[in-house]
């Protein structure tokens, strides 16, 4: 990534950096502030009002509500509310279903992440090598970005549908007992493929942009020294685009944890036997189907903590974003 957008106050170049540092030292709270800025008390608050209002109503209040609900026990009719401290969390972490769900989520996000990043790396490497038809291939590979996760799920669910799916037909013809409605591993694989199919385009775009920013002088020097295309990719390009890969791994986890809800709902409904019951689907099932408010709220709180950790990770990436201009 060539542009030096970063979270650190040392923006945007060496000239601005010097007076900026001094200001940071004299007054706190100027992180990410333009050197040439305005001093007004009311106008900025007014500008911030719409965003803060929307966040308050649809983000902070719901989050606080989840937090408060996670500490109480409500009976199904909503008549009595009892404060139970960490009981909801305790019973949640002790429940075999939740532990199984954590396991499923772990393996699912890991498999999805590995598959997505490896395939997109191979595709990006190939795109970087060829001269003709780049735009054409890119247009095709980009297509799934337009497709809703739920539609991706429906398309894959159909391909592998035991009654009508053409790929199931082939698999059955080969003597493979394929049935995602009965075999947990089949359902797991199907959801993983659909999720990766939908997300490869995202990683691919970033990797192409990153590969383009690897300085050609380095690659040419290595070629003169006799390094072939593959060696150059592994020893020069890959380390150079390391930060991008790290960012993509974090984003793949975010995608796998939260945005695959629609795929699971379209393909397996969390089944069979909880084989694809990822955490974000379980929150929905427990909250809206089983109406177990305390447990659902506790799950929400745990996931929010987890998401915050991922946010911090991403911030660190942005902060450390290395400028590779040579």
């Amino acid at each position, binding site marked *: 990534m060539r*542009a030096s*957008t970063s979270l650190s106050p040392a923006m945007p170049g060496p000239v*601005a950096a010097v007076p900026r540092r001094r200001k940071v030292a004299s007054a706190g*709270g*100027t*992180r*990410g*502030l*333009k050197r*040439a*800025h*305005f*001093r007004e*008390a009311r106008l*900025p*608050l007014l500008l*911030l009002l*719409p965003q803060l209002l*929307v*966040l308050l*109503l649809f*983000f*902070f209040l719901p*989050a606080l*509500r*989840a937090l408060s609900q996670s500490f109480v026990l409500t009976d199904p009719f909503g008549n009595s509310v009892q404060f139970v401290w960490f009981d909801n969390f305790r019973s949640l972490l002790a429940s075999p279903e939740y532990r199984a769900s954590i396991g499923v989520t772990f393996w699912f996000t890991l498999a999805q992440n590995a598959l997505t990043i490896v395939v997109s790396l*191979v*595709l990006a*490497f*190939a*795109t970087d090598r*060829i001269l003709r038809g780049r735009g054409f*291939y890119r*247009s095709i590979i980009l*297509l799934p*970005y337009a*497709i*809703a996760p*739920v*539609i*991706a799920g429906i*398309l*894959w669910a159909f391909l592998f*549908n035991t009654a*009508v799916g*053409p790929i199931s*037909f082939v698999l059955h013809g080969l003597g493979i007992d394929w049935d995602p409605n009965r075999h947990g591993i089949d359902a797991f694989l199907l959801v993983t493929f659909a999720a990766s199919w939908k997300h490869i385009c995202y990683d691919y775009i970033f990797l192409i942009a990153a590969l383009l920013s690897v300085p050609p002088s380095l690659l*040419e020097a290595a*070629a003169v020294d006799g390094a072939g295309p593959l060696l150059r990719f592994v020893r020069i390009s890959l380390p150079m685009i390391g930060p991008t890969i790290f*960012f993509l791994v974090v984003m793949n986890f*975010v995608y796998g944890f939260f*945005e695959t809800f*629609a795929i699971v*709902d379209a393909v397996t409904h969390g089944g069979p036997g909880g084989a694809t019951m990822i955490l974000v689907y379980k929150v*929905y099932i427990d909250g809206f189907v089983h109406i177990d408010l305390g447990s659902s*709220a506790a799950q*929400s709180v745990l996931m929010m903590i987890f*998401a*915050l950790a991922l*946010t911090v990770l991403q911030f660190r990436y942005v902060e450390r974003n290395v400028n590779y201009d040579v």
Partner: protein
Amino acid sequence: MVERTRGIDIACHGILFLGGLLVCLPIYFAFVVGSHTVSEVLAVPPPWLPGRTFFANAATAWEKGDLGRLFVNSFIVAVGIAAGKIAVSLLSAFAIAYFRFRWRMLAFWLIFVSLMLPIEVRILPTYEAVANVALPLQWLVDALDVGRWLGIEIALDWNMMNSYGGLILPLIASATATFLFRQFFLTVPEELAEAARIDGASPLRFFWSVLLPLSVSNIVALGIILFLYGWNQYLWPLLFTTDKNMATAVIGLKDLIPQSDTEPAWNVAMNAALLVMLPPVIVVVALQRWLVKGLVDAGK
């Protein structure tokens, strides 16, 4: 290209061709199934080539799923999310990057804490909040007994269920766009704001005449991403389908998918899937350059 390596170049084309094939495979079969009759779809072996009833199926899907109405809803929601989020984010990013004021860091953290908390995580409480936004106000009205003073009964029930506002606003509540604009503002040369200040321009004048024109390409790129995001929303609109007239196209499609106890009209369902994915696909294909720019910028 540093040297000629025929073998590797051919292998690369092969890899990309395979990748493209993998991407197209599910879409191709959706097209194949979408152009056959039910009995042809259920035949053994399943059809491998497109049939002849594509447009008849499309007409059935359009009618059965009430897609005309749902497409309008989807457009309103997608454009509403894109426009709303961009407007809100531009203002708050401007405030955070260009003003020094009390509570600045507090506002900064209040906004960026929401950066990666998708709505799926806090779905139940958000649902409750939208079901009655005015609940806290109602308590106030009851406590003060305002109704008796005015001689009328006040029942505050600002229920946003089944409204465009309820569909759009919770999806605006995150900081992703704010973050992008802030990052962009930080790369704008300091001299511009200095010059504007020397010329006596007010902050709003500077925003309107300098910053906004500079941001156009970012706004367009982000608008595309947000349009796709809005069009493809699933869980949130799903909870709103109590009124079929307010559903989005994606939800309407979901209702067309054959369940185990219904007629296996996969041909209509897959045809509808193609119809529903058409607008975002057109956007991606036609505005690819902008989309790529927007995505890569957003990741920085």
